[in-house]
């Protein structure tokens, strides 16, 4: 250990500083774009899992089980290497050759669909927690079932889900590091690259660790604001930080 020669200045040396900064930007882009897909798809999946139609339930259930039980890295490889081969020749060709930043979009879709199945389960749990009594109450007041979903179950169920979303949001940033396996030059990939060039691995991995810590802190604080605004009066989660 004593033979290690420290050089913290490496972090602000050109061109490495720009590589690291661009790595941070790509990490944030991949995670945020994936999050958009995850939230949208996850909400649909969560609601669909509470429906009565057996066909819908079976399809959505199969989706959730598949994406939950295959390692994320394998999913990324399937999207990146296998999907273009299974598509019609022209579409596969477009994915492989013509789509700009194909590895970025692949990472976004993989992370998005993977996180969506986890969010779907949270949304389902949120809706199921209130469904029984409130569905009956809603139907009794003369609402139709779609109206019950639109005005009661979805808005209220969603607000129950918010605390659980915080950890999924943090996870998508952490999981975005897997994008390096298909060549996305995000933060972990960039710091490893500079570490290999300069042999200053400790400084670089420390920098990466600090950035991930900052991301976690920022997400936690931002979600706490969302949690406070989405809080349901009278629920246990509001008692903790109550007036």
């Amino acid at each position: 250990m004593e033979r290690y020669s420290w050089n913290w200045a490496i972090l602000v040396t050109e061109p490495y500083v720009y590589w690291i900064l661009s790595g941070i930007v790509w990490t944030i882009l991949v995670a945020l774009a994936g999050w958009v897909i995850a939230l949208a798809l996850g909400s649909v999946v969560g609601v669909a899992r509470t429906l009565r139609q057996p066909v819908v339930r079976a399809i959505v259930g199969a989706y959730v089980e598949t994406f939950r039980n295959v390692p994320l890295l394998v999913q990324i490889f399937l999207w990146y290497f296998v999907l273009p081969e299974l598509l019609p020749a022209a579409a596969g060709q477009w994915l492989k050759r013509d789509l700009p930043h194909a590895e970025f979009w692949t990472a976004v879709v993989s992370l998005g669909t993977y996180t969506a199945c986890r969010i779907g389960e949270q949304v389902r749990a949120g809706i199921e927690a209130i469904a029984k009594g409130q569905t009956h109450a809603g139907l009794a007041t003369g609402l139709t079932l779609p109206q019950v979903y639109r005005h009661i179950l979805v808005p209220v169920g969603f607000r129950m889900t918010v605390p659980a979303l915080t950890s999924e949001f943090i996870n998508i940033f952490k999981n975005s590091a897997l994008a390096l396996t298909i060549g996305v030059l995000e933060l972990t990939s960039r710091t490893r690259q500079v570490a290999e060039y300069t042999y200053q691995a400790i400084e670089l991995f420390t920098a990466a660790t600090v950035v991930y810590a900052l991301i976690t802190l920022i997400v936690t604080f931002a979600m706490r604001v969302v949690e406070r605004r989405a809080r349901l009066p009278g629920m246990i989660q509001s008692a903790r930080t109550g007036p």
Partner: protein
Amino acid sequence: MQIDLAYIVDELPLLWKGMQVTLLLTLLGIVGGVALGAALAVARLSRFRPLSLAAGLYVDLFRLLPLILLIFWIYFLLPLWLGRPIGGFYSALVSFILYEAAYFCEIVRSGIQSVRRGQVHAGLATGLSYGQTMRAIILPQALRNMLPVLLTQSINLFKSTSLVYVVGVRDFLTAADVIGTKDNRLIEMYGFVAVVYFALCCAASLSVNRLQRRYAI
């Protein structure tokens, strides 16, 4: 495009070798992770503030790192510290143990905290010592409460071991990747890997659910 099942059968011996590495990493990771995690949980619940703060800091730190970054950290740091190369397998194993310990710590801690405090008092009131109360009353109940979550986390680790790909360890996924790249048969290989992981993880989580129904307090 044709999918050739006979090709997969031909390559099964090599894939099985990879699967053995995956299973070994998972098993050793669970044993080491649970042991370290339990020690951390005891430290976190300790009345001695510095100890519980240190354990809390450990848990927070390791939970904010992407596992891949931790693998890179260890892959680089451990040889520097030991003064000799240790290879991808041991680097990855150490990373899994350190990483999973943070999660196992929280599982064990909430398992212990799930047993009502009154039971400690009740145990002490009947004349048992603190150690006896822990051993005979609290821990058996805590274990039953935490077992399903422990097992689910173990399934997660089984899936996470595929990340050894980044340091070139020949686990199940990497073995399939090497074979598939050599023969230009990535579709068959990745497809097969996905099916096997899916089947194993599904079976495992179904058994955890069944276990949970039977042993829940």
